[in-house]
C-alpha cells in the first residue's frame, strides 16, 4: 500500500513536469474560466465577496478538470502506456498519481482569485473551511476529469470536447451565477446535482459567513461525488487501458 502511494507520487511528479505547460491545459484550465466569468459578471451589480466565491469555485472546477484528461490520450499517442502497464503498479495507482498532479494544479491556480480578492479587501471568515473545501473540490473535479479521459482514444481534442460538453452544463445548473436560494425549486433541484454547487456554497460560507446548505452537507456531498467519480474512473480505465496499447 505505502509502496503504491509512493509510486503514485512518482507518477504525479512526472505529470507535473510534462503536462502543466501543455496547450490544452492552459487554454481549458486557466483561460476559459476567466473569460466565462468575465462574460457573466461584467456589468452586473453584485457584491464582491459573492463574485469572488463564484470565481473561485469556477477556477477550481476548470483547472482541476483540465490536467487529468490530457494525460491518458497523450500517453496513448506517445506510447508510454505499455511500460506503465508493465510496471509493478495498479491502474488505481496510476490514476491516483494523475489525480494528485491535477489537484496540485487546481489548488495552485485557485490561489490567484483568493489573492485577488484579498487585494480587493475581501476578508476570509472561515479560512480552514475554505482550505478544506478547495482541497476536497480539487480532488473531486480531478477524479471527474479522469472519467472523460477513459475513452480509449489518443486524441486529446476528442476528450476535451467531451469534457466541455459535460462541464458547461454543470456550470450553468450550479449556483455560481445565481445564488441557490433565489432559484425556483426545479432550479434548486437541478443545482443540487452539480458538484460545483457545493464548493461554491462552501466558498460563500467562507467569504460571506452564510451559505445555502449546511457546511456538513457541502462537505459530505463533495466526498460522495469524489468517491463515485473515483470508482467510476478506475472501473472505466481498467477496461480501456488494454485497448490503448
Amino acid at each position: 500500500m505505502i509502496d503504491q502511494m509512493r509510486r503514485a507520487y512518482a507518477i504525479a511528479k512526472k505529470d507535473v513536469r510534462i503536462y502543466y505547460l501543455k496547450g490544452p491545459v492552459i487554454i481549458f484550465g486557466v483561460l476559459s474560466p476567466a473569460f466565462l466569468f468575465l462574460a457573466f459578471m461584467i456589468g452586473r451589480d453584485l457584491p464582491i465577496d459573492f463574485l469572488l466565491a463564484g470565481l473561485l469555485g469556477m477556477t477550481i472546477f476548470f483547472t482541476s478538470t483540465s490536467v487529468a484528461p490530457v494525460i491518458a490520450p497523450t500517453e496513448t499517442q506517445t506510447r508510454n502506456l505499455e511500460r506503465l502497464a508493465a510496471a509493478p503498479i495498479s491502474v488505481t495507482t496510476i490514476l491516483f498519481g494523475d489525480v494528485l498532479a491535477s489537484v496540485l494544479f487546481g489548488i495552485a491556480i485557485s490561489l490567484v482569485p483568493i489573492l485577488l480578492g484579498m487585494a480587493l479587501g475581501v476578508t476570509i471568515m472561515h479560512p480552514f473551511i475554505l482550505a478544506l473545501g478547495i482541497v476536497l473540490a480539487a480532488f473531486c473535479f480531478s477524479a471527474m476529469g479522469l472519467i472523460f479521459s477513459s475513452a480509449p482514444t489518443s486524441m486529446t481534442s476528442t476528450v476535451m470536447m467531451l469534457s466541455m460538453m459535460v462541464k458547461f452544463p454543470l456550470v450553468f445548473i450550479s449556483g455560481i451565477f445565481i445564488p441557490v436560494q433565489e432559484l425556483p425549486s426545479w432550479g434548486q433541484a437541478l443545482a443540487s446535482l452539480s458538484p460545483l454547487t457545493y464548493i461554491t456554497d462552501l466558498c460563500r460560507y467562507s467569504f460571506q459567513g452564510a451559505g445555502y446548505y449546511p457546511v456538513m452537507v457541502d462537505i459530505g456531498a463533495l466526498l460522495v461525488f469524489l468517491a463515485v467519480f473515483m470508482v467510476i474512473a478506475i472501473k472505466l480505465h481498467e477496461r480501456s487501458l488494454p485497448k490503448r496499447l
Partner: protein
Amino acid sequence: MKNVIEVKELTKHYNGLTAVDHINFEVEEGEVFGFLGPNGAGKTTTVRMLTGVIKPSSGSVSVMGFDLGRHPIRAKETMGVVPELSNAYTELSAWNNLQFTAELYGVPKREAKSRAEELLTKFDLYDRKDHKVKTFSKGMKQKLVTAMSLMNDPDILFLDEPTSGLDVRSARLIKEMVRELRDTGKTIFLTTHYMDEASQLCNRVAIINHGQIAAIDAPEKLKVRIGGLQYVEVSFTAPVDVSDLRAMAGIAGVRMSGDKIQLYTDEPDRTIRGLVDYSRSFNLEIVTLNTLTPTLEDVFVKLTEEE
C-alpha cells in the same frame, strides 16, 4: 534448474480472432529463450500476457513463482520489459526517465543514481543524460528504453524485437548486453526476426505460428531434427542446365539462389564428387563450392510454411 517462467494453456482471443492458442512452455533460470515467428504469429501478444500488460482469455502464467493473475505486482517487480513499440517520455531528460522508472519499481534513491550512471555510460548516453529524449535518435531512444528496463536489476528481462531498426553497432551493443546478463545468471526472453541473432544468443528457441507453438528446442537440435536439409552450394563460370544437376544421384532438391545453385542432399560427399565430374565433362569452371548445414532460418521457414 528451476523454472522461472511457467506458461499453461495460455490463450488470447481478440473478438473472434485467436491470437494465442493454448500454448505451454517453461523457461529455465539463466537461459536466453528465443521466441520466433512470422508477423502476426502472436509473439507480442504472448509477451504482453507474460509481462502482465494484458490479461489472458484463459490459461495461466507464473513468473519467478508468482502467479501473474493473483500477484501481478510481486511478479512485475522481478521483471524488466522492453516493449515492441514504446517510448521513453520525450519531454523528460534521459536521467529523469531513468529515475522515474526506478521510483515505479521502488528502487532506493542512492542505488538508482549509481545504476543510472552505470547504464548511461554503458549505453554511450552519459554525455546526453540531461537532454530531453525528443532530441534523441531512434537508436538512442531504444538504448535508453533498454537501460530503463534494467533500472530495477530484474531477474528476468523481456525484450520484444530489441534490435529492430538499429545500426550494426547499436545492435551489437544490445546483443553484448544480453550475453553479459546471461553470464550474470539473468534469464532473458527475447523475440526477434533475426535468425542469426537467435542462434547466436539463445539456449533454446520456440517457434510460434498462428498462435501455436510449432517447436521448442535448442537451435542446433532443431536443425538436426528437421534433417534432410544439408546442401551443397555451387556456382559455375557459365550458366548450366539445372535439370542435369537434378538428375544426379542422391539429390533431394535443387534451388537457385542468385547465381548460386543449392543442391539438397543427405550425402554431401557424393554430391561434391558428382559436381566435380559434371564440371569436368562440360568443361566448366567451379567458382565457389560450399557445404552448408541448415540454418535456423531454414528451420523457421520449414516450420512456418503455409501448406
